[in-house]
Structure formats: structure tokens, C-alpha cells
């Protein structure tokens, strides 16, 4: 029944939205002020698409029944990931994890490699995992690397992943494991809920809309997201992901290397002793080997076969060269020996040791090493992943938020996911603005990275529903740019009297108001009474964070620049109100207030008309109401539990 009404309202909203935006593009633009008119209509179009994607999400809202009982012999590893969180916080979670009902083993994955943590874990009978020597001088891939490392050491069929602060309920496995009775299910995500957040949630930590209608809607499209913690994964699915990724990556590298082999060899011919016929011969041999490899790759030979053959032919060419070097050397020695002027040794002519050819032809000492371009080429034509600690990386490492990319790849391989709408773990949210902003920035950066590296709209293996569900989340992170326009438009009208719309006629209101009403109704019905205002406020008010996320992620993906990545600290940062963190918002708020004063003055002076002023004053008041949350956030002193507050009175 609810679904029926939700769909009606979705259809209505989309219809009214298209009606409004189409009219805006075709009949309402004030071309004299195109520099604000076009950005504004573009921003509005962005918002309409955002609403349409939200409508699509809730269209298929899935309310699941409890799963069947899981087999008693299903083996589970519980992973608690930590980097530098306080030891007692990690141990609280670990003890709770140990008390989980279904048989399992509990592991602390300590990326901080802390001796005290190891001792505490061992003293309490909890497994302890840290990175081994393989990881020295290799990319660490943060949390994804930490989990991948643990996956190679443990054996459970299923994994429950918990952040260090997420204290699980004993029943967490009993309530969720049964979903895996369906052998295609690879992921079960449960909500993230925070206990250190007051009712008014000043930092917008709880995400009731996301861990509710949005995840339930995505679930309806078989696109429930993996959110990094409070989730169960099927090991087999992750391993398949790792293997598929490894094969793909290797093939890509070998293909690229073979394709580039001609130019690499050309370069080598220029740098090497071109006159030396032996060197020229060796390079010819290498070229013949790589040409053959390329032909075999196109003919569909296996990678291991190709790389092995190319390797052997190259080794043979190198060996020939070394042998030639040695025979020339031997000839020199004999000539020296025949000279009367000096004798080289007591026991006749010295002879180059027999096994020296072998050793001097080996990878490390080969004369080929002198030709860097060829050396790099041959390194790439191999099936070992030389630049990674472990060749198989089950959890995606293309983004700082490994979870989204991993889930997307699982979905593309045809695995199913489940969103289980029941709070089964209780965590700690950031308690200060700075930490919260760092966390939001990281999520946004990670999402944009995935969008730029593996655009969901073109991923093979995903259904269109799944593609749009991933795209929807990415799209919503682009809102920072539109927020700037939404702040600028009313300021421009109130201060300069320039209206981006050709007129605020009944035509405008008759299209705009019904759309806005339907829009609000949609959020009310889809959210069935959930408080969504805090989320709406932050999605607009944090516009500098969203913009920064987009620009830094784009620079990172396209130009290889670092993100300036930081792990979210779990302990509260000390210090007073943090105004400096929200300087752009303070500036915008000041401009909005100034615009209000100027706008009213202009109206009084008869310079602008009442309806335009009224609409824009209303708009400014809305913008200020949205941003007012930052006032509360910047002065928030952290969570005080109810009892403690009572004591203080």
C-alpha cells in the first residue's frame, strides 16, 4: 500500500519537475543576464535529476522479512579494523565481538602494529593480525590493504567487518547469517548507528534517510551498498573478485607492455652501443620474442604461457650475449698469456668459471639491465605483480573508500547484496566539527574517485537499475557547485535587481510551487516520518567540502596528485569553537544578510518590485536557516550523556 502511494508521488514529482524545468529552459530564461540565468537553470536541472534518482531509489523499496536460520557449521571471522584508536576502545569492541552468539573467531586487524595491542589481544584470547614483511615499501592501501592482508591469513567462510568503535550485539550473526543460505548473496549490510549523538544531532552524524529508505530502495534494485563496517561478506565472492581483478590487471599490463615493446626497443637501440653486432643481435632477438608474444596474445594464448615463452627467449638472447662477452674475454686472456712480457699466473691461462655464465645472465646482473627501457618492458611482461604486496587484492584499492568500489565490482560479477534494516552495532560518531568535516571529505573524495575511475554507467555486468543506484550517490556529491548558484542568485537580485528569470509571472508560480510541494511530499512519504531536515541542511551547508572533494579527487585520478588523505580520528579534537573551518560559509552568510538589508532598502526606495523582493527574501531566509546548523556545529562541545547532565544540575 505504501509502495503504491510512494510510486504515485514519485510519478507526480517527476511529471511536475519536468513540466517546470522544461518551461524554465524554453520560456523563462533572462538572456540579458545569461551569466546567472544559465547557471541557475543548470543548477535546477541538476536538482531535478537528483530528485528523479531519489524517486527511482524509493520506487523499489524492499522491506525484508527475517532471514532463515543459518547452518550451525557456517564458519565466520569477525574482523575489527584499527589504526590508532585507543586500546580500550578497540578492546571493548573486541570483547563484544567475542561474545557474539554464532561460533566464530575474532581478530583485531591492527594497522598500527602496536605491541600493547598485540599483548592485550593475546591475553584475552583474541586473534591479532598486522601487516607482514611483504608490505614493506609497497603501497599499503589503507583499510582495504589491512583487510586484504587479513583475508590471506584467516579461513572463515564469512567475514563480519567492524570498525574499531562499532560494538556489536551478541545476536548480530544469528540475525544476518541466514541470508547467505542463498548462495548468490555476497554482502549483508546493517545500519551504522551512533550512541554518542544527542537528539538534535548537531553534526548530522546519523543518516536515517540513508540507512532507511535509500538503502532499502537500493536493495530493491539489488544494489545495497557496502559501507565498510557492520557488514558481512562471503569470502568466496571476495576471492573471486581478487582473482578476476588480478587476471584483468595482468592482462592489461602485459598487453600494454607488448604494445609498447617496439618503441622501447627503438629507444634501447639508440642508447646502446649501436655498432656492437652482438648487442644489436640481442635486441633483435628480444624484438622477435615480443612480436611473437603479441601475436600469441591476439590468438588467445594464456598469459602464463606467453610470459613464460617471452621470458625464456629473452633469457636465451641474454645468455648468448654473456657467452660472447666471455669468449672474447677468454681470447684476450690467451693473447695476454702468449705475450712474453708478462705472465698472468702460475697455472697456465686462467679460465672463466663455468657456472659464471648462468649467474651473469640472471635477472640481477644481466647486461640487459643497462637498457632501462627494455628492462622495464620485460618487468611488465610478467605475471607477478611486482608493485604490490600481494598479487590478489580482494578488496578494491582504487579509492580511499574501498567499500563502494568493492560492492560495485561484486554486483558486476553477478553477486547479490542485502540490506538488513535493524541496528545490530553501536558506534561512535565524531564529536567535533573538524573531525566530522574530515570524514565527510573522505567519503566524498572516495565516491568521486570511483565515479572517475569506474563510472558505474558504463560498467558491464551491472543492470541499469544498479548503474543508476551507484550513479545516484555519486551525483549527489556534485551538489556543492549548485549550492554556490543557489546562494548567489538571490544575492544578485536583492543587491543588483537582476532577475535570472524573465518574469515572476503566474506562469512561474503555477509550475514551480506544485513541483516543490510534490518534492517535499515525496521526502515525507518515502521517509515515513524520518527527520530529514538535518541531512538537507548539511547537503547544502557543506558545499565547500563537496567542491573540495570533487577538485581533489579529479586531480588525483587525472594527474596522480595526492588527496591529502587523513584517517578519521575517533577521539575528540580539543579546542574552542572552530570558526576557521567554516570561513566560506560565514562569508556567504554575511553576504546573504547584507543582501537582505540592501534588498529591503531598494524596495523602500522604489528600485525593485515587491514580488521579486519577497520571493528572494524568502529564499535568503531559507538559505540562512539551512546554514544556521553550522553555528550549532561549531560551538558543539561534544556529547554529554543524560545522567552526567543530570549530575551537573
Amino acid at each position, binding site marked *: 500500500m505504501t509502495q503504491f502511494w510512494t510510486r504515485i508521488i514519485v510519478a507526480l514529482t517527476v511529471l511536475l519537475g519536468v513540466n517546470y524545468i522544461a518551461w524554465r529552459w524554453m520560456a523563462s530564461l533572462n538572456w540579458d543576464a545569461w551569466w546567472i540565468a544559465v547557471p541557475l537553470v543548470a543548477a535546477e536541472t541538476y536538482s531535478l535529476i537528483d530528485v528523479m534518482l531519489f524517486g527511482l531509489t524509493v520506487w523499489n523499496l524492499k522491506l525484508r522479512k527475517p532471514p532463515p536460520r543459518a547452518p550451525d557449521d557456517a564458519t565466520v571471522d569477525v574482523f575489527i579494523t584499527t589504526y590508532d584508536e585507543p586500546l580500550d576502545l578497540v578492546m571493548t569492541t573486541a570483547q563484544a565481538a567475542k561474545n557474539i552468539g554464532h561460533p566464530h573467531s575474532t581478530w583485531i586487524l591492527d594497522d598500527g602494529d602496536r605491541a600493547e595491542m598485540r599483548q592485550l589481544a593475546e591475553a584475552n584470547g583474541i586473534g591479532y593480525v598486522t601487516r607482514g614483511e611483504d608490505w614493506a615499501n609497497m603501497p599499503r592501501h589503507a583499510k582495504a590493504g589491512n583487510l586484504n592482508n587479513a583475508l590471506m591469513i584467516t579461513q572463515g567462510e564469512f567475514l563480519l567487518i567492524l570498525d574499531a568503535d562499532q560494538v556489536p550485539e551478541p545476536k548480530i550473526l544469528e540475525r544476518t547469517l541466514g541470508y547467505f543460505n542463498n548462495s548468490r548473496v555476497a554482502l549483508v549490510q546493517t545500519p551504522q548507528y551512533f550512541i554518542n549523538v544527542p537528539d538534535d544531532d548537531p553534526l548530522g552524524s546519523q543518516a536515517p534517510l540513508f540507512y532507511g529508505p535509500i538503502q532499502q530502495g537500493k536493495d530493491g534494485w539489488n544494489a545495497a551498498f557496502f559501507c565498510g563496517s557492520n557488514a558481512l561478506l562471503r569470502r568466496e565472492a571476495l576471492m573471486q573478485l581478487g582473482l578476476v581483478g588480478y587476471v584483468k590487471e595482468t592482462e592489461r599490463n602485459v598487453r600494454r607492455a607488448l604494445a609498447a615493446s617496439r618503441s622501447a626497443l627503438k629507444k634501447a637501440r639508440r*642508447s*646502446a*652501443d649501436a655498432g*656492437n653486432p652482438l*648487442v644489436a643481435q640481442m635486441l633483435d632477438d628480444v624484438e622477435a620474442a615480443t612480436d611473437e608474444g603479441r601475436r600469441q596474445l591476439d590468438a588467445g594464448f594464456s598469459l602464463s604461457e606467453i610470459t613464460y615463452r617471452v621470458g625464456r627467449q629473452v633469457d636465451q638472447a641474454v645468455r648468448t*650475449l*654473456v657467452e660472447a*662477452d*666471455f669468449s*672474447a*674475454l677468454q681470447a*684476450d*686472456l690467451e*693473447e*695476454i698469456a702468449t*705475450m712474453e*712480457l*708478462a705472465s*698472468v*699466473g702460475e697455472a697456465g691461462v*686462467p*679460465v*672463466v*668459471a663455468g*657456472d*659464471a655464465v648462468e*649467474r*651473469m*645472465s640472471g635477472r640481477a*646482473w*644481466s*647486461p*640487459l*639491465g*643497462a*637498457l632501462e627501457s627494455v628492462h622495464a618492458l620485460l618487468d611488465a611482461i610478467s605475471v607477478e605483480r611486482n608493485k604490490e604486496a600481494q598479487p590478489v587484492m580482494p578488496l578494491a584499492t582504487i579509492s580511499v573508500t574501498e567499500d563502494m568500489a568493492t560492492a560495485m565490482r561484486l554486483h558486476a560479477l553477478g553477486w547479490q547484496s542485502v540490506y538488513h534494516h535493524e541496528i545490530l552495532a553501536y558506534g561512535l560518531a565524531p564529536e567535533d566539527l573538524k573531525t566530522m568535516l574530515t570524514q565527510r571529505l573522505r567519503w566524498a573524495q572516495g565516491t568521486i574517485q570511483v565515479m572517475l575511475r569506474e563510472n558505474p554507467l558504463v560498467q558491464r555486468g551491472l543492470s541499469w537499475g544498479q548503474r543508476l543506484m551507484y550513479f545516484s550517490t555519486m551525483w549527489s556529491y556534485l551538489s556543492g557547485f549548485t549550492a554556490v548558484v543557489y546562494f548567489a542568485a538571490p544575492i544578485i537580485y536583492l543587491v543588483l535587481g537582476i532577475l535570472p528569470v524573465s518574469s515572476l509571472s503566474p506562469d512561474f508560480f503555477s509550475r514551480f510551487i506544485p513541483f516543490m510541494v510534490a518534492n517535499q511530499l515525496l521526502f515525507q512519504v518515502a521517509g515515513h516520518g524520518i527527520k530529514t531536515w538535518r541531512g538537507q541542511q548539511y547537503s547544502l551547508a557543506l558545499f565547500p567540502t563537496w567542491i573540495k572533494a570533487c577538485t581533489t579527487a579529479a586531480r588525483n585520478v587525472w594527474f596522480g596528485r595526492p588527496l591529502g588523505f587523513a584517517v578519521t580520528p575517533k577521539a575528540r579534537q580539543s579546542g574552542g569553537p572552530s570558526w576557521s573551518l567554516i570561513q566560506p560559509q560565514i562569508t556567504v552568510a554575511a553576504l546573504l544578510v547584507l543582501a537582505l538589508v540592501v534588498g529591503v532598502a531598494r524596495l523602500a526606495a522604489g528600485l525593485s518590485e515587491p514580488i521579486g523582493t519577497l520571493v528572494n527574501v524568502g529564499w535568503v531566509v531559507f538559505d540562512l536557516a539551512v546554514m544556521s546548523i553550522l553555528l550549532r556545529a561549531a560551538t558543539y562541545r561534544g556529547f554529554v550523556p543524560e545522567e552526567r547532565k543530570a549530575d551537573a544540575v
Partner: protein
Amino acid sequence: MQFSYELKDSYAEVKGAGRLNMVSAPKLREVVAEVVAGGASRVVVNLEDTVFMDSSGLGALIGCLKAARQAGGDLRISGVQAQVKMVLELTNMDRVLTSYPTAEAAFGDD
């Protein structure tokens, strides 16, 4: 790898920093040939800054030894580093080319 040489009282010292390999070996032959042609047949190749040598590099050293001997002199090496030392031992060439701690010490005895 670039080579340079310096004429001392009783010998010429040839120096090069980097890797004595297939690419740089011909240059060493040229430099030593030039030194020997200039009349200095007692040559020390100072290897203190040579971090790596392959079979071509070793061939060049022996070739240079031959050139020096043919001119009536000798070629000695000094300041041998770890990898080069291993190559010399592995190939038995440490019996042909004795290494001295310093360039001065190489012709110190005669």
C-alpha cells in the same frame, strides 16, 4: 657513466662513477686506449664509485688489461665495491686482476 683520467707520477688513473655495463663498457675501452696511446701504459682503473659491473664491463676490463700489456705496461684495479668483487670472484678473474685498496697502492711496489 662518464670516465675521466689523470696522469700521476708513475701511472695514469682512470675513474668512472656509476654502472660499468653494456652501455658504458665501450667508453672505458676508448678512454684506456687513449691513455695508452698517449704513452702511459701503467694504468689504474679506480672502481671506488663503480657500483655495478656486468659481463660486458668485465670483458672491457680484460680488454684494457690486454691493451696495457701489449704496450708494455699493466692494468690494475682499486677500490672494488661489493657487487664488482662478487663478479670477479665468481668468474675467477680475481686471479687475473688483483684489486688494491687505493689507486696509490696499486703500483706502490714497483
